[in-house]
């Protein structure tokens, strides 16, 4: 039975191989069947495995499967080995389940695209790599999956490669995340040099036994791993790539740049929580970075006019919440928000994909409007997801997950009032920008007519996600409301429990407060964006607005600080001695070419004459020698 878990990442990888090798030769139907089917099989396997695994969780916390030896030298040993525990199980569930729904959706979304089978090949490779990432038994295999998803992200952002801007966005994503990845591999090197193993459990055990909390080496290692997480999860200061990553097709944004891959950083930190607990400075840095990112991205989301960029900034902001939760030691709260976020954010992106497709590639929300009556199914699901994003009290899943984070940001032993304040301002911003998005896109006068009606393959996955965006929250209810802890109980088999300090303030106070804040935000957005659009209009022309819209000038800053100096250096480097020599050779060859090319003039008698002269010369030489 245990060997079955190795099939879960293997089947999508086989799907990738099939589509990459034979994708062009098989009809589109077969390619789509293979592309979505492999992920579907993985999903069913995940369900089957999880039902057995959860049943036996009281006896065995971890299932390990060693497939074969990967690297074996005197000092170094790494296997292709998978391990399953409750943390990776939850990630596998989201990857395969949300991934499968998005694959189904893509069957229709991509049906008119010439790169249909290529798309599914990349998507399958992505699902396979992501599963390897979360199931890996050792850091090296995890890094393989980590780089695999980075590659797929690059390939899929630049999927429509004929547009040069898309290629640029893809390269930007690849290079920015590479900065983090480099830090991360150095962290893995330090762990290996210290403990002579890359097996995650052994490393964590050894670290907790041998390293002193707060020691420089623990801090350094945790900081380097955090670098990797920041790059992948688009957190400050490496967040600039995610808004540009929206150049890819919408299902890609849904799967990779919202639901799964960008949360790999959250997974990494949760997985190596031992190290972060040993490095309190880095752990607090995680919380502070999360808080700052959620604010910065929240303000930026409020000012975007491209529907997908709103969602991109909102993703950065929501992952900021997860980092905030990780930083205050609320491990299970971060993972819970990850799951709920995966549902509603995938839904938002898929809905945005439908809107953009139906309106003939119109991204600007100010040119939409009035879609409420034109596309009721999309409107209702989009509304549910936005409500979940805005954490509408009591009914949506987002409320329960975000409220938990806010509560722990204050009441956990590492929490503080400042972190909580950042979180609550972020909640207000989230409510504002998600209602702004709804009001401008779906209400008011229609500005663009829908060109066709979305089919079942797109609506059904979206509806399922909408169902989970509501119901998903009820597996984990706060003490004051139902007191259900199914989710954190499952995770606490793997992750440490959050330790609360005695604050003296009951948690329902915070729930009421955050509920009021959210409702206020929605009401304010209603006033400003629907009732009196002129109020928003005056703000639109201020300098602050364009500052927020450009993502707080981070792109411009990096452009001046890093990109231009590098380009300048490479310009100089282009003219060094070796290049001059090589270019000189090329010039010489060109000179001879231009001389000789004159002799090839197409006149046959000229050729014969040169032939005759040549023969005469050769004969003269031979005879007179």
């Amino acid at each position, binding site marked *: 039975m245990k060997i079955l878990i190795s099939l879960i990442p293997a089947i999508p990888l086989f799907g990738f191989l099939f589509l990459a090798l034979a994708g062009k030769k098989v009809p589109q139907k077969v390619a789509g069947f293979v592309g979505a089917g492999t992920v579907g099989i993985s999903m069913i396997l995940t369900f089957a495995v999880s039902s057995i695994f959860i049943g036996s969780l009281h006896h065995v916390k971890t299932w390990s499967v060693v497939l074969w030896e990967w690297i074996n030298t005197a000092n170094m040993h790494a296997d292709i080995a998978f391990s399953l525990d409750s943390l990776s199980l939850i990630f596998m569930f989201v990857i395969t389940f949300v991934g499968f729904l998005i694959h189904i959706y893509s069957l229709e979304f991509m049906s008119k695209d010439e790169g249909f089978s290529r798309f599914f090949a990349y998507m399958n490779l992505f699902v396979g790599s992501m599963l390897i990432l979360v199931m890996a038994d050792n850091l090296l295999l995890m890094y393989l999956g980590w780089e695999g998803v980075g590659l797929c992200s690059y390939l899929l952002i630049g999927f429509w490669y004929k547009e040069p801007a898309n290629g640029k966005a893809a390269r930007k994503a690849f290079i920015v995340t590479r900065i983090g990845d480099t830090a991360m591999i150095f962290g893995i090197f330090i762990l290996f040099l210290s403990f002579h193993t890359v097996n995650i459990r052994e490393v964590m055990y050894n670290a907790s036994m041998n390293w002193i909390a707060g020691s420089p080496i623990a801090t350094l290692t945790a900081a380097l791993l955090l670098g990797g997480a920041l790059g992948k999860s688009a957190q400050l200061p490496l967040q600039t790539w995610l808004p540009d990553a929206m150049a890819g097709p919408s299902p890609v944004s849904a799967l990779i740049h919202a639901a799964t891959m960008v949360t790999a950083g959250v997974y990494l930190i949760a997985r190596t929580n031992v190290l972060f607990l040993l490095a309190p400075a880095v752990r607090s840095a995680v919380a502070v970075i999360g808080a700052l990112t959620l604010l910065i991205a929240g303000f930026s989301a409020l000012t975007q006019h491209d529907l997908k960029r709103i969602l991109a900034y909102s993703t950065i902001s929501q992952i900021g919440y997860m980092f905030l939760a990780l930083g205050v030691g609320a491990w299970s709260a971060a993972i819970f928000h990850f799951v709920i976020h995966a549902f509603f954010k995938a839904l938002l992106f898929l809905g945005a994909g439908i809107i953009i497709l139906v309106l003939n590639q119109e991204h600007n929300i100010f040119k939409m409007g009035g879609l409420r009556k034109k596309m009721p199914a999309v409107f209702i699901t989009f509304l549910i997801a936005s409500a979940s994003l805005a954490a509408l009290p009591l009914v949506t899943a987002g409320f329960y997950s975000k409220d938990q984070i806010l509560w722990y940001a204050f009441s956990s032993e590492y929490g503080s009032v400042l972190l909580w304040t950042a979180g609550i301002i972020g909640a207000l911003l989230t409510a504002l920008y998600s209602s702004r998005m709804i009001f401008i896109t779906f209400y008011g006068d229609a500005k663009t007519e829908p060109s066709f009606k979305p089919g079942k393959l797109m609506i059904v996955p979206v509806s399922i996600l909408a169902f989970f965006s509501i119901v998903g929250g009820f597996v984990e209810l706060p003490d004051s409301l139902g007191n259900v802890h199914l989710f954190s109980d499952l995770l606490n088999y793997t992750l440490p429990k959050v330790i609360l300090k005695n604050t003296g303030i009951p948690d329902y106070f915070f729930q009421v407060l955050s509920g009021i804040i959210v409702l206020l935000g929605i009401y304010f957005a209603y006033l400003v964006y629907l009732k009196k659009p002129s109020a928003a209009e005056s703000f639109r022309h201020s300098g602050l607005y364009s500052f927020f819209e450009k993502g707080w000038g981070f792109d411009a800053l990096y452009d001046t600080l890093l990109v231009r100096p590098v380009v300048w250096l490479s310009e100089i480097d282009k003219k060094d001695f070796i290049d001059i020599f090589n270019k000189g050779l090329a010039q010489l060859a060109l000179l001879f070419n231009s001389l000789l090319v004159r002799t*090839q003039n*197409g*006149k*046959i008698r000229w050729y014969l004459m040169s032939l005759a002269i040549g023969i005469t010369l050769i004969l003269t030489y031979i005879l007179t020698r």
Partner: protein
Amino acid sequence: MLTVPVQIQILLAGILFFLGLIGLLVRRNIIFMLMSVEIMFNSAGLVFIIAGTHWMQPDGQVMFIFILAVAAVEVSIGLALILQLYHHFKTLDTDAINKLKDKR
């Protein structure tokens, strides 16, 4: 039997060869050029015959038969090409048929 010295015979073949070569270089009509090539062919054949009689060997005549066969083949291919050329360019002037060149 009157015998011509072998040098004179070779000289005759040489004159024929150069006549052919000059014809090839000066003529612009591709059919005349083909004929000039034939003349050069035949001068080469003549040298074989001369050598064969000089050393009393049959090889020279055997080679000549070969050359004849090759020439026949060559002429048929050449004429076919000329037909195609004419069909395509509506001219037989080789200076006008100069499309096979590098662009400068």
